[in-house]
Structures are given as structure tokens and as C-alpha cells.
């Protein structure tokens, strides 16, 4: 067993060294990836995917069609996958890691497992949507929103801030999906913006007041069915349902907190290439493809309704423009998922 471990470590070391050499070679060797030059990449990659399965499938299908690279997807939740990658270490089978939110990316970055993102990819993504370290990049964004039932809450009774939801008058009135990475990212933003004491106090108030659902769409469905007055979710569940049949959202209205409130948090979905990737060239090409024009147009024209953020592709016209959301400024690299699960466990939410 020991021998095997050493052998693996050796391989990983060699791979890292090779990567390092490649990086030393020149910064301009990268552009071969994706785009028109797809000739240099081949083989297959494994993507650990915590993004929505359907969105990633659209990306994967388009990428495979363009490059011929076969993509194997392992599906999971943000923090499940980030913790898994950290435990797997250099032996991880993953080449690329995609998430719905950024705390999980920060965790893998802090463990030192990400390779640098190719410069060509970095150049496609505005600085606001990626960490300054360039160890990973934003690939899409989602805004926090309170969806509510107009018949039950009049506009003047809406909370000014997300923090108000912990107040006694909101007892039994709102829903959320605390087990999901989406919600945990909102808590991570709150933690970064307001500090630990305020966060744990809010979480305890939440435990008193809220109803737990599994998944944002289920929470929204509960508002629609009149089981609860409001739900704290991300915006695109509403728009996605409206674009389909509206069956789960016809009684639902979205309310954006704006004013740089923690409840106006814009969460960045992340993508990164692992140091231990077995096919780093194809992995980098995949990331470049997602953040490139074609990948971002999947966000603009597809059915995911997440915000496009890179390559100057505009958001889906049905959405509230990103600049009108008045999101607070949070460095995505600073979001701390481990602390969040700890605080949520402490508050009895997990």
C-alpha cells in the first residue's frame, strides 16, 4: 500500500513538474486550446460538476463537438465535491472542477490544489468575477432574491434587509434550503460582510423562523402552493420556471434587496483546473470554452437563466440587468465554506 501511495505521489510530482515546465515555456503556448485551434488537444477529461447537471451538459456537448475531447462528469454538491477533492489530494481523478458558488472554489484554492488559469481565459473574464489570485475563474453568476406571494405580503411589508428575516414578525413565514450550496454561499457572504457574531445570531433567528425545504425549486414551489409566504433563493429558479410552464411560480413575485444588502449578494459560479489534472491542456481548453463567447452564449440563450459574465456576452434579456442589482462587493476568494457549515451546524440547521 505504501509503495502505491508513493508511486502515486511520484506521478503527481512529475505531473506538477511537467506543468511547471510548460508554464515556464511561454505564456503564449496556451491559445491553442479551444476556439479555432482545437487541433492540439485530444483525449478525455473528468469534470467534477457541482453546477446544474443540465447546464454543464450543454457546455460539455458543445465542447466535445468542437474539440472531440471526451468529457466524463461526476455530479455532486459544491462542498461535497470540494471536500472530496481536498481529501483525494494529488490522487484526484478530476481535471476540472465546476461549482454553483465560490466558497467551494476558495476551499480547493486554499488547499493549494488548483493550477493557474491560462492567461487567455483570465483575459476573457472581468476582474470583478474572478479571484485576484487567478487560481480559478468565475463562469456565471446568480443573484439572491426573495420570492414571495403578493396576496400574503403587501409591498410595504417587505423586509428592507435580509437580516430582518431573523426578526420575530417573520416567524413561520419564509422558506429556504439550508442544505444546499446556494444558501451556504449567501451565509458565507454574510459572514464576510458582517462578521461571525452577527452571522450566528442571524442563523439562530432563522432556525426559529424558517421552514426547511430540499432545493431552491422546492422552496419556490412551496410559496406558489401557499404553504409559506416567501422563500430566500436565487433568481434563476423563478425565471426558469416562468420560461417553461410557470406551473411552479405563477403566484410568485421576485423581490431584490439591492442597496448593497447581504441579501443582494451576487454569487459567482466557479471553474478551475486541478494541478493533478491528467490532461491539463484539454482541461484548460474546456475552461476557456466555457468563459468564451460560445460558452457564455449558452447562458444568454439557453434555459439556465444564470448571468453571463465573460467575453462581453450580455445576460439573458429577460433578467434584471446585472448593474441594477446593486450587489455588495465581496471578494469571491474570501468566502469560507468550512466556517459556514460549522456555524450552521452550531445553529442546528445542519
Amino acid at each position, binding site marked *: 500500500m505504501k509503495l502505491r501511495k508513493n508511486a502515486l505521489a511520484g506521478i503527481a510530482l512529475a505531473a506538477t513538474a511537467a506543468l511547471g515546465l510548460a508554464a515556464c515555456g511561454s505564456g503564449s503556448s496556451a491559445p491553442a486550446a479551444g476556439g479555432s485551434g482545437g487541433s492540439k488537444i485530444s483525449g478525455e477529461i473528468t469534470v467534477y460538476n457541482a453546477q446544474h447537471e443540465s447546464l454543464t451538459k450543454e457546455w460539455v456537448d458543445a465542447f466535445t463537438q468542437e474539440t472531440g475531447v471526451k468529457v466524463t*462528469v461526476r455530479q455532486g454538491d459544491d462542498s*461535497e465535491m470540494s471536500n*472530496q477533492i481536498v481529501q483525494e489530494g494529488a*490522487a484526484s481523478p478530476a481535471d476540472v472542477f465546476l461549482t454553483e458558488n465560490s466558497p467551494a472554489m476558495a476551499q480547493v484554492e486554499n488547499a493549494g490544489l488548483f493550477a493557474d488559469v491560462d492567461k487567455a481565459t483570465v483575459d476573457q473574464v472581468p476582474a470583478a468575477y474572478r479571484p485576484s489570485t487567478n487560481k480559478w475563474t468565475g463562469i456565471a453568476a446568480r443573484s439572491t432574491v426573495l420570492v414571495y406571494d403578493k396576496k400574503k405580503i403587501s409591498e410595504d411589508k417587505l423586509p428592507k434587509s435580509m437580516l430582518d428575516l431573523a426578526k420575530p414578525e417573520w416567524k413561520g413565514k419564509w422558506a429556504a434550503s439550508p*442544505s444546499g450550496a446556494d444558501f451556504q454561499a449567501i451565509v458565507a457572504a454574510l459572514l464576510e460582510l458582517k462578521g461571525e457574531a452577527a452571522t450566528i445570531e442571524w442563523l439562530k433567528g432563522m432556525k426559529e423562523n424558517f421552514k426547511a425545504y430540499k*432545493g431552491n425549486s422546492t422552496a419556490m414551489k412551496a410559496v406558489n402552493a401557499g404553504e409559506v409566504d416567501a422563500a430566500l433563493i436565487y433568481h434563476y429558479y423563478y425565471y426558469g420556471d416562468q420560461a417553461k410552464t410557470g406551473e411552479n411560480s405563477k403566484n410568485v413575485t421576485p423581490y431584490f434587496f439591492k442597496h448593497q444588502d447581504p441579501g443582494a449578494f451576487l454569487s459567482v459560479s466557479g471553474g478551475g483546473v486541478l494541478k493533478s489534472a491528467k490532461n491539463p491542456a484539454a482541461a484548460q481548453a474546456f475552461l476557456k470554452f466555457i468563459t468564451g463567447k460560445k460558452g457564455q452564449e449558452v447562458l444568454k440563450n439557453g434555459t439556465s437563466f444564470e448571468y453571463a459574465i465573460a467575453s462581453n456576452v450580455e445576460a439573458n434579456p429577460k433578467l434584471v440587468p446585472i448593474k441594477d442589482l446593486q450587489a455588495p462587493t465581496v471578494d469571491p476568494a474570501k468566502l469560507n465554506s468550512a466556517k459556514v457549515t460549522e456555524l450552521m*451546524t452550531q445553529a442546528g440547521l*445542519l
Partner: protein
Amino acid sequence: MLIALLSLIPLGYVVYMTVTTGWDTAVSLIVRPRVGELLLNTVLLVVLTVPLCLVLGVGGAWLVERTTLAGHRFWAVALAAPLAIPAFVNSYAWVSAVPSLEGIGSGVLISTLSYFPLVYIPAAAALSRLDPALEHSAASLGLGPWASFFRVVLPQLRVALTGGALLVSLHLLAEYGAFAMIRFDTFTTAIMIQFQSTFNGTAGNMLASVLVFLCLLLLLAEVRGRGSARYSRVGSGSQGIALRLPLGRYQLPAQLSLLALVLLAFGLPLALVLRWAVQGGAAVWTADEFVPALLQTLFYGVVGAAVTTVVAFPLAYLAVRNPTWFSKALELCNYVTSSLPGIVVGLAFVTVTIRLAPAVYQTTGVLIAAYVLLFLPRALVSLRSGLVQAPKELEEAAQALGTSPFLAFLRVTLRLTAPAAAGGAALVFLAIVNELTATLLLSPNGTHTLATEFWSKSSEIDYAGAAPYALLMIVLSAPMTYLLFHQSKKAAGQ
């Protein structure tokens, strides 16, 4: 021996994790309000559901086997049918019909409807075999039918009932999908949530240790409940045929209540799955998604069932032909492990392979090994009953006639036990097709089984998209359920 050691991995892992976590951390993670909530939920669920299953299961079996119920042959099969619908499919159907279902009441409803056949099948088998002589004696001593049922019949069903009750309770502890869908938290759903937020974090492991403790408690309760009395006939002569009690004016109410039960437990879920499938139209039958899921499910089912049966054979052989303390210990290890929920076995395998055997981590082999551990007893029970019926003397006779021991074994014993082996394999196959939690945790990259695909679609409330997978699972399960029902009758009739 190796299998016994392997089967101790999950249990050893839980103990190891609890010990290495350190007393203070462990206590702070176990003794907290959230665990209290989960404990209350889980205990209430067991305390409410098990008696309901017993009443429905025994009542149904009694009507079918011992009364002049019209169409009792039809009802005999119909009452076993709900077993073909996995609990999480049942939950999905109910929740899509009544979206406000949530909490303990719904948990009891759905699990009772899903699991009462686990009591009904052994109860019916035992009832069909009972010697009516005892009841005749009771009647001659002046006992009415009711008194005779409670004082004579019911005590004789004790083994079948405690066994059924244990099975139901273990399923209740292990179930994830069905309860997650109706927002009812038990230890298993909470462990899964912890796993999804921390992948193998300490809090999840501590919850697992409480869950394991609950399982062991149940096993112990079953041993106590079963008692040590003998129930087999010891008199001479052949067994009489039981008289069927005339139902008279109770015929109609009996028919109606059975109809209601079968409609709720089988008709409604099936109808809703079909409705969603029709509503989704041809579009949801995207062959490039569900054909691989079907093929992978069949692959895991067939390979898992085959390996489990092959592994079970020497264990059963030892236990039947050469019962020693050693073979008994081997069997015990396996029963304890298989009483652990799939999630605990899955967690243990993740940790052990990632740390000690990274080369096999996330391989098909590990998933198959987990299936073998989880479902070995199903094959064992079936094989044992087959081996008991293949007398050793026949093999010895073959040897005396000049066949080599190996060939004698092959031609005589193996051939005679083949039907029992097939029955056991079918049971394991059924279990693997409907397994969710261990598969979610351990499956190799790119794996999509019917159960995991169904789960990912229904989590996104894409009910129409999930329907084809639910339908396929039911279609695969139905013949196995029939076989199980048939097999239990035969085993009881020997």
C-alpha cells in the same frame, strides 16, 4: 474469513471514527439539540410505522389465507405488489399529487404503504402452514374465533412477525430518498446532508455512530422478541387443511378495505408515474440518457447479484453442513453489517479506500463490494433453505458410486440448490436496482443508474423527466417481487 473481515470494515470504521474524533468533540456533536430532534423523529417513525405495518400485514394475510375472502388468490398477489414500488418512487408520486405532504405524518403514511408487504409476505407464508389441529383444540375448549386468533394463531406467528418488524424498522432507519422528498428529517437524511456539505466530515460520522447504535438496538430487540420456543409440528400423521372462516356480512367491508389499501399503496403511485410519463410525452424518453442508465443498472444488478450469490454459497454451506461457532460468527458479522444503512457502509468505503487503497477508490469493484456486504443475507437466507433440502447423503451416495467428491458436489448439491440460488440472486438484484445512497456515494465517475438519474431529476422537481426512470425501476422490480412472494410460500410449505 476474508469476507467476514471485509464485512467488519463499516462497523470498525464507525468505532474508529468515534474514538479518533476525541471524546469532547464526539460528545459535543452527539449531545446537541439537533440530534435530539433527529432521535425523536426517527424513534417516532419506527414506533408509529411498525405497528401499522403489523396490523395491515397480518390482517391482510389472515383475510387472504384463513377466510372465505372472494378472490383470495388475486388478493394474495395484490398485497405483495407494493413491494415492487421503491419507497422513494412512492414518495415522489404522493408528493406530486399532494405537494403539501411533509413531516412525521407523511413519513408514516408513505413508509407504511411501502413496507407493510415486508410483514404481509412472511405472515401469509406462516399462516398457510399453521397446523389447524391447535385451533380445533381451542375451539373444542370453547374459544371463539377472535379469542382463538389472538391466543392460538398470533403467538405462532411470532417469528414471522418479529422478523418482519425488524425488516421494516431497518428500512425505516436506512431510507433516504423517500423522506428527503417530503422534508422529514431522520438520521439518514441528516447524514446525507452533512455529507453533501462537508464530504465525510466529523459531524456526519458522529450521526452515523448514533444510527449504528440504533440498528444494533433493534437487532437485539428482535432476538429477544423472537424467543426460543419451538413452533414446528411434532405429532405424527399428516397436517390437516385449515378451515376458512366464513366472512358472511363482513365480505364487502373486507373487499373494500383491501381495495383501498392496494389502491393507495400500488394503484396511486403507479397511476401518477404513468400520468407524468404521458405528460412528459416522447420528449422525456431521451434514449441517449436513459439507455445507458438502464444498461448500467442491469450491469450492477446482474454482476452484484452473481458475486453476492457466489460469496454467500460457501458461507451457507458451512453454516448448514458444518455448523460451528466459527461459521455462526461469520454469519453474525454479515447480518450486523447488512443491518447498517447503505449510507454508513458508503461512508466507510469512501474513507477506507481513499486513505488505504487509493488505487481502487471510485472503481466499480468497490461499489460491487458494498452491494455484496449490504445484501449478502438476502442470498444467504435463500441458499440456506435450498441447502437444507439437498441432503448430504445424496452427495455421499454419488461418491460411493465412484464420482469424485468435486464432481459429486457439482452434479448433486449444486444442481439441487440452483433454484434457491436463483431466488437469492433475484432478491439481491431487486435490492441493487433500487439502491440509492451507497450508489450516490461510491459510484465511479460517469455512473448513472436508474435510481440516481431518477433522484437527480426529481430533486429538480422535473417530475415528467423522472417518470421514465421510475417506470423502468417498477418494471424491473415487478417480476422479482412476484418471485419473492412465490419463493416464500414454497419455503414455508416444505
